[in-house]
C-alpha cells in the first residue's frame, strides 16, 4: 500500500483522537435518571417557591402532566387532580382520568408534551434524555421513581404535596396510610415458623424476592418468600415449577390476573400444580395487577387483601 496513504490514515487517526478529546472535555452532562427514588428533603414550610430534590418551582403549578400511574393516583388523592391536564396511558385510576388526554410514558414525544404547555411534569421512568430535553425546553420535571420501601412511598406523597401546594393534604393522606397499614400489620398473628408465599408476576412464572418493594411489604406482614436465596443477585427470578412444588408455599399471590388472565382455576389446572397445599386449601389470592404494581394510596387495599388471606389461611390450619 502506498506510503502516502498510510501517512494519511495515521494523520486522520491523530485528528480523530484530538477531536474526541475535545468533544469529551466539553463537559456535556448526559445524566439519565434511574427508576429509583430520589432522596430529597421535603420542605416543611408550605408555600412557593418550593424546592424538592433538584427541582425548584416558583409558583403553584396549574397545568400538571403525570407520566406515572402511581403519581396520578397520588395527585388525585391529595387534591391536585383538578389541575392535571394529561396522564400516561397506564393511568386508569381514579375515574376522572378517563377523560384526560393520554400520553405514552415509554416512547414519549417531547414536542407533544411541550405543546400542552405544562408547568410541572412528573415521571417515574426516563426512557433516555427525557429529563434533559424537557429541561432544555424549560419545562419543570420531577422524577418520582419506584420506591424501595413503604417509607419511600409515604415520602413521595409528601414530595408531590409540596410541589403542588397541597402539603397539608398530602401529609394527612400519608399519615392515614401509615396508621392504617400499621394497624393491619399489628392485627395479623405472626405465625412461627412464618407462612410462606409465592408471588406470581406472570405465568412463565416470574416472581419477586424480598428485596423488591412488594417483597418488602410482604415481609413487614410476616410472610416468608420461597424465592429468597434461590438465585443470588436476581430480584426478579424465573422460578422453575419444580422449585415451587418442592417448597410448597402456603399462599400463592397472583399479580397476573389482568394481564395474563390467571385465576385460581387456571392455576389449579396447570400440570402438577393441583397437588400444592395452596391449591387444595383454596389459598390462591388473585390480586388486581394495577393495585399490586403501584405504591400509591391504594397500597392500603393491597395490604388489607394480603392480611385477609393470611388470617383465613391461619384459620384453616
Amino acid at each position, binding site marked *: *500500500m502506498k506510503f502516502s*496513504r498510510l501517512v*494519511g*490514515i495515521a494523520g*486522520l*487517526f491523530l*485528528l*480523530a483522537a484530538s*477531536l*474526541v478529546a475535545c*468533544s*469529551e472535555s*466539553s*463537559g*456535556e*452532562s*448526559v*445524566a*439519565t*435518571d*434511574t427508576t*429509583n427514588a430520589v432522596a430529597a428533603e421535603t420542605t416543611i414550610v408550605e408555600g412557593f417557591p418550593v424546592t424538592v430534590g433538584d427541582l425548584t418551582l416558583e409558583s403553584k403549578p396549574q397545568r400538571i402532566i403525570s407520566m406515572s400511574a402511581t403519581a396520578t393516583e397520588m395527585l388525585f388523592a391529595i387534591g391536585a387532580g383538578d389541575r392535571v391536564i394529561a396522564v400516561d396511558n397506564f393511568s386508569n385510576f381514579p375515574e376522572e382520568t378517563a377523560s384526560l*388526554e*393520554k*400520553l*405514552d410514558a*415509554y*416512547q*414519549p*414525544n*417531547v*414536542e*407533544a*408534551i*411541550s*405543546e400542552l404547555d405544562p408547568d410541572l411534569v412528573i415521571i417515574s421512568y426516563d*426512557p*433516555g*434524555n*427525557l429529563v*434533559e*430535553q424537557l429541561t*432544555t*425546553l*424549560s419545562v419543570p420535571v420531577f422524577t418520582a421513581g419506584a420506591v424501595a420501601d413503604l417509607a419511600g412511598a409515604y415520602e413521595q406523597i409528601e414530595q408531590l404535596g409540596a410541589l403542588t401546594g397541597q402539603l397539608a393534604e398530602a401529609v394527612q393522606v400519608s399519615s392515614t396510610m401509615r396508621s392504617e397499614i400499621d394497624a393491619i400489620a399489628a392485627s395479623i398473628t405472626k405465625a412461627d415458623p412464618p407462612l410462606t408465599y409465592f408471588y406470581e408476576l406472570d405465568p412463565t412464572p*416470574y416472581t419477586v424476592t424480598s428485596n423488591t418493594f412488594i417483597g418488602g411489604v410482604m415481609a413487614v406482614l410476616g410472610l416468608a418468600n420461597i424465592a429468597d436465596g434461590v*438465585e443470588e*443477585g*436476581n*430480584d*426478579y427470578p*424465573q422460578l422453575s415449577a419444580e422449585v415451587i412444588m418442592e417448597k410448597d408455599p402456603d399462599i400463592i399471590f397472583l399479580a397476573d390476573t389482568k394481564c395474563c388472565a390467571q385465576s385460581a382455576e387456571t392455576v389449579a389446572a396447570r400440570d402438577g400444580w393441583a397437588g400444592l397445599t395452596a391449591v387444595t386449601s383454596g389459598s390462591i389470592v388473585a390480586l388486581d395487577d394495577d393495585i399490586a404494581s403501584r405504591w400509591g394510596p391504594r397500597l392500603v387495599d393491597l395490604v388489607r387483601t394480603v392480611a385477609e388471606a393470611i388470617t383465613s389461611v391461619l384459620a384453616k390450619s
Partner: protein
Amino acid sequence: MTTPTVFAASRGSRAIWWVLGAVSVVVVGLLGLTLGPAGPTWWRVPLAVLDRLPLVSIDSGVTDAQWNIVWQIRAPRVVLAALVGAMLSLAGASYQGVFRNPLVDPYLLGVAAGAGLGATVAFAVNRDATATWPIDPVPLAAFVGGVIAVALTYTIGTAFGRSRSATTLVLAGVAVTSLATAVQTFVLQRNNDVVRQVYSWILGRLTSATWGDVRLVLPYIAVSAVILLMYRRVIDVMRVGDDEARTLGVNVNLVRIVVVLAATLGTSAAVAVSGLIGFVGIIVPHAVRLLMGSSNRIVLPLSMFVGAAFLIAADIPGRILTSPSETPIGIVTAFFGAPFFLFLLRMREVRQ
C-alpha cells in the same frame, strides 16, 4: 453482477447527481425541521432558519420557546439522522464491495450483537450509580462491544491457515453474533427489570437525540467516512475477485482489514447513539446502484447523501403518525424498506 447503468455515464452528467444529492439532503433536512407535532406553524420554520443566518433579518413570528423546540429538539434529530444514515449506507456499500456480496449490511461481522450486548451490560450493571456519571456509559459500552465483537470475528476468521477468504470472515461473524446474542439473553434473564430499556434501545430511536450525541459521534463518523471514501477505487478493483486483484497489485487482506476497521468504527459510533436501525445499510446502496451503476467510485459517496436523506425522511412519520407517542425508527425503515427491497429485486429480474 454489473447492472446496466440507467443514465449515460459521461463525465459531465455525473456532476449533477452530486448537486442533486446535496440538495436533497438539505431539502429533506429542512422538512425534518419543519414537521412535527408541536412548535411553530410549518411555513414559519424556514423563515426562522433564514433569520438565523448572518446578515439576514426576517420577522418570522416564531417565539423563543418555539425556536427552542426546533433547534434543541428537532435539529439534533435531523443532524443525527443524517450522520447515522450516511454512515450506515456507506458502511453497507463498502462491505458489499469488499465482500462481493449484495446481501451484506453494516452489522455483518457482529457489530449489532456486540453493541447490543454492551448496552445490555451497561443497563444491567449497577444502573443506580452509573446513571449519574457525567458520561453516559450506555453508548460507550455499545461502542466498545461492537468493536470487540468485530475484532473477535476478525481474529477467528483469519486464524485458520492462509485462506482468509471473505466467506470465512462472514461465517466467523455469524458465530460471534450467535455467541453475543446468547450472552445478552442470559444477562437479560438475570436482570429482567431492564428488559424494556434494552428492547427500546434495540429498536433504534432518534427521539433522545441531543447536540451532545452529535458531538460524540461526529469524529468517529468523519474519520470512518474519509477512510472508506479514500478506498473506493481500490474496492472497485477488488470486484474482479481476490486472486485477480492480487495480480493487479492490490494487497487484498490489508484493504479488507482497513475497510472493516473503518466501517466498524463508524457503525459502532452510529449504533451507540441510535440503537440498531436496520435496512438503511442494505437498501440505500442498492438503490444507488440501480440508478448509477455498480461503480463503487460513485456508489459510495452517493450512498452517503441518499442514506442521510432517507433516514431524515424516515424519522418524520415516526413522530407525527402516532403522536403523542413515538414510533421507533427501526419500524419505519423496515416498513418502507421491505417493499422497496422487493421492488428492487423485481427490477433486477426484469432486467436479466
